[in-house]
């Protein structure tokens, strides 16, 4: 399934390249001598509010993707906001540099946006790291949107990765979608994690589907290996690992538990995660006296997840909305039978014989679970090692990084619109009212940039010493292929 998608993606991108070549031929100013070089090394700045020490899917996505891009010889830096006492500049494995910028956090670890206040620091990062591509993550992150806006003001190419699905109907969605339209109107390329997510993003932000690519998430298959010896004999264990929030369908779980526990006396539930809906599960446990059969483990560290997964036979996911469910891939990678709701991008994630899809209702989920339990009892399920062997090749970070690299190659050759054409596009694309307001904000931002450039000119800022990329002073890529690195470093030199 992953293979099929990859092919589709490659053919789509080759089509785009052909059309891009046409536009480049017709527009001589757009032609860039370095654009045609596929071995070009980029200098990438990942921007998101969400990064370690905060835990979650976006955080690990950024980290793993950055590591694989560094392995491919690109230079990667990450900009995020300060977490508590963690401020300033840090280095992670393989010279991955992280800037924890002191920006005020407003809500849910997302910074406040005024469109301006983050410009001085982000400009400093972009200039001193000689960034060529700005890659922003997550539509919940205000800092990511700010960075896209500032990068365009500074004339840099931008990529945006959307990790979540949104609605269209309620007031907050309408507003968020309008902001997303404005923010993505200038972005060169958008990456979504599944086809459902692509459809959603294209509709929400009224984008040209040509500039939206689908690159799924991945799991580290070496972290999630099966170990059937950890399973307790004489019982069937259902594992649920998710944040205990409404979006993850915890109310459904609260309905399933008593029904199935009544029918199957050997059924046990192991629930990992923390959240406001924990109380629902505790009530159910209390009401039906299931203390010995439903274990609530509370918040889990990422490294402990595998230890919980391998204890189970069935992995249950009850999400009500999901762009791409990493948890079910992790579950399948540990050799579990996966039962999940058929929502969002989930049907795309795993081959049909590895997953049982149900409607997001208690009855349908119970029926699905019971079918799997019967199969387990009769032994008509593939062994955990077989499941793992199939899943391990589906989603790898190297594959994700290779496809993201193609996006960068394409974006790096694109022309950044000058201010006048940018304003025109904003007004055409976003409607006359919002378009005019944001055109005004874009002009103010440009003037602010001129002021900053007058106060501290670009040439006064020290260029940072590279810790990754072609001219890295440390890191394994330098030691392994010094000759190749030196050759590849030439085109990126200013």
């Amino acid at each position: 399934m992953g293979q099929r998608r990859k092919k589709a993606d490659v053919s789509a991108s080759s089509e785009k390249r052909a059309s891009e070549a046409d536009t480049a031929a017709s527009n001589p100013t757009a032609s860039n001598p370095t654009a045609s070089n596929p071995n070009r090394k980029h200098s990438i700045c990942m921007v998101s509010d969400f990064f370690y020490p905060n835990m979650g899917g976006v955080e690990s996505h950024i980290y793993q993707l950055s590591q694989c891009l560094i392995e491919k010889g690109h230079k990667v830096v990450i900009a995020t906001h300060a977490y508590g006492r963690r401020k300033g500049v840090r280095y992670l494995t393989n010279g991955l540099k992280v800037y924890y910028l002191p920006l005020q956090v407003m809500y849910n670890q997302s910074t406040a946006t005024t469109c301006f206040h983050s410009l001085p620091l982000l400009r400093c990062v972009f200039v001193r790291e000689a960034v060529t591509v700005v890659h922003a993550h997550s539509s919940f992150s205000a800092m990511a949107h700010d960075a896209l806006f500032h990068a365009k003001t500074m004339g840099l190419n931008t990529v945006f990765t959307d990790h979540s699905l949104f609605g269209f109907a309620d007031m907050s969605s309408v507003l968020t979608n309008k902001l997303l339209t404005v923010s993505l109107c200038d972005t060169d390329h958008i990456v979504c994690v599944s086809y459902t997510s692509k459809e959603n993003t294209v509709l929400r932000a009224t984008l040209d589907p040509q500039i939206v690519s689908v690159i799924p998430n991945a799991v580290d298959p070496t972290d999630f290996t099966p170990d059937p010896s950890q399973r307790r004999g004489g019982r069937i264990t259902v594992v649920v690992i998710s944040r205990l929030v409404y979006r993850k369908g915890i109310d459904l779980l609260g309905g399933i538990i008593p029904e199935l526990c009544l029918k199957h006396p050997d059924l046990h539930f192991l629930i990992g995660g923390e959240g406001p809906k924990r109380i629902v599960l505790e009530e159910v446990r209390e009401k039906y006296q299931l203390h010995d059969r439903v274990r609530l483990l509370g918040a889990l560290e990422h490294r402990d997840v595998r230890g919980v997964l391998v204890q189970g036979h069935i992995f249950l996911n009850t999400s009500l909305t999901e762009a791409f469910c990493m948890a079910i891939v992790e579950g399948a990678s540990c050799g579990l039978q996966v039962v999940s709701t058929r929502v969002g991008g989930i049907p795309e994630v795993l081959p049909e014989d590895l997953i049982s899809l149900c409607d997001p209702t208690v009855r349908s989920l119970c029926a699905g679970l019971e079918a799997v339990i019967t199969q387990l009892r009769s032994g008509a399920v593939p062994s955990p090692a077989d499941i793992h062997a199939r899943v391990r090749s589906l989603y790898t970070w190297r594959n994700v990084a290779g496809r993201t690299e193609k996006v960068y190659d394409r974006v790096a050759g694109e022309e950044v619109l000058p201010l006048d054409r940018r304003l025109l596009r904003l007004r055409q694309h976003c409607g006359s009212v919002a378009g005019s307001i944001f055109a005004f904000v874009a002009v103010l931002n440009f003037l602010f940039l001129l002021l900053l450039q007058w106060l501290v000119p670009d040439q006064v800022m020290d260029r940072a010493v590279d810790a990754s990329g072609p001219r890295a002073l440390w890191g394994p890529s330098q030691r392994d292929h010094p000759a190749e690195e030196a050759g590849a470093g030439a085109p990126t030199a200013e």
Partner: protein
Amino acid sequence: MDNEKYTDINGKAIALNYQRHSSFCTEFTVSSPKVSIGKVMVATCFVWIFAYAVFFFTDNTAVLSSAIIITLIGMMLYIHFVKIDHESLLVIGSLGIQLSSSYASGREHTSFIEMSKIKDIVINEAIYMHQIIYYLCILLRDPADTSAVSSVVPLFQSSKPRLNCLVKVYKSCQEIISKC
């Protein structure tokens, strides 16, 4: 002595002088630009125009005389406590490091760090105001645990030279420290 041009992080020219007293002892001096007459004029004019505006509405001459006194005292305080003319770093192998800063008024402030307390000298990056800058600092050894760093002493805090100047000082310091 070399002719390389050095600037501080705001692009103003600074001068780096170093004297090799012996192979174990080197003194670095970073001199900031002198107080510019333009800056003094702007500050003075600002206070006086404000005082005159207040005088215009209150008709109280005490405002004007206090403005004169404020500018004079302000200028004295500025050159005595704020404006640093040059900062120097005297590295003596096996003995220690002496940091001294001399103010525009001639006042000097000197401190000395013993070599046994010094773990290393490094160049670090920090976020300073709305910029990200490189700075040179001394890492102090934790007396309880010799492998840990107890605190950090930033150097050239007032002149804030750029990376090329810091690298020069860093290399010479490391040469001396590694010998002992």
